[in-house]
């Protein structure tokens, strides 16, 4: 029986130092390292906000969001949306993943 690899922890990249602007549900983040401007939805911004506070796993982010919004844990789509956001944020260099040793 093979052992499942541990779930990665996600953290906000401390070197990112993003500059933010928001109009309604549209969030824009300027990355001074790349001079790139990223357009992010509110879910992605909340994920970054959580990961700014402490490292979390996917399940931990899911739990934290449910707690933050005080809702029932009955929507499977949320987990997929968070995972999708994590992939985008990692690709943009805003967050990092690492496996516990």
């Amino acid at each position: 029986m093979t052992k499942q690899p541990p779930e990665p922890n996600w953290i906000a990249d401390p070197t990112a130092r993003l500059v933010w602007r928001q109009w309604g549900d549209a969030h824009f983040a300027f990355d001074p390292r790349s001079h790139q401007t990223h357009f992010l939805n509110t879910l992605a911004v909340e994920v970054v906000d959580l990961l700014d506070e402490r490292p979390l796993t996917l399940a931990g982010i899911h739990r934290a969001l449910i707690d933050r919004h005080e809702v029932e844990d009955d929507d499977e789509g949320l987990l997929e949306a968070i995972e999708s956001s994590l992939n985008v944020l990692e690709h943009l260099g805003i967050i990092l993943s690492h496996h516990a040793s």
Partner: protein
Amino acid sequence: MSATLRAVPAPELARQLPAGLKLRIGPFVVSMVGRDRLLADCLQSHYPDYPLALPGSFPDARLHLLDQPWWHRLLGRPRHICLEDELSFTNFPPAALLAHIEWSMNWCIASRANWFLMLHAAVLARDEGAIIMPGVPGAGKSTLSAYLMHRGWRLFSDEFTLLTPGTLELKPFPRLIPLKNDSIEVIKAAVPEAEFGPQIPGTRKGRVSHVKPTGEHLRRMHEGAQPRLVVFPRYQAGAATELTELPKSACFAELTQNAFNYVLLGQQAFEMLADLTDRVQSYRLVYSDLAEANQALQGALRAAA
């Protein structure tokens, strides 16, 4: 007000041009260099109301029309404009000199004037403030600008928006407006008083003819203005005039795509465009009738002021 090129007698112009004649064009000084009568004629015909720069002014751009042996004309050889490096920057038939002076100047300013945030957008102003009109080539910026500058709007530029860091003041950079192809006839019909340069066929943008800004636009080119509106125009044949308010997020996203030096200026540009977005009302304008577009823009500007 300093003297204009019109005040320079032809013999004096011929004496100065080989060493460089400096004109003030908006906030920039452009030095024109060349011995050829072709250059003197072009400047006298198309730039007479531009002021001469003060003696000793440092030029932001230097355009040199290279000499050509007389017999090169017999072989149909092209003329060349060089910039500071004295290498050929562009070559062209003699009849296209005006277009290539203007395009060379565009390149110099777009690649150098990084003390401004530069947008690829037209700017026109009235007493209430200025309107910025970004747009891709073909959106109708130049045609609309050529019309509006003859209908009570002050021309800042048909394609260069110069935003000052800190204040967001817009600086005028009034130039000849290059109309392309059918737009030439559209403006000739709509603005009979417009003064055109020669028609230049076969350029990389097709048939081009330049509309001159009148002296009044040039006399006031030191007067900046505050932005009130950002309007994204789109000419659509036969379309009814439609001015639709745009969410600020969409305005900001599009502005970031329209700046010449957004990535270069980095965080400063991000914050300037965000501040601009907060300050203005933004719209999309679809139009086919120039007079109706003018009325719609005036109404929106009054409402925003």
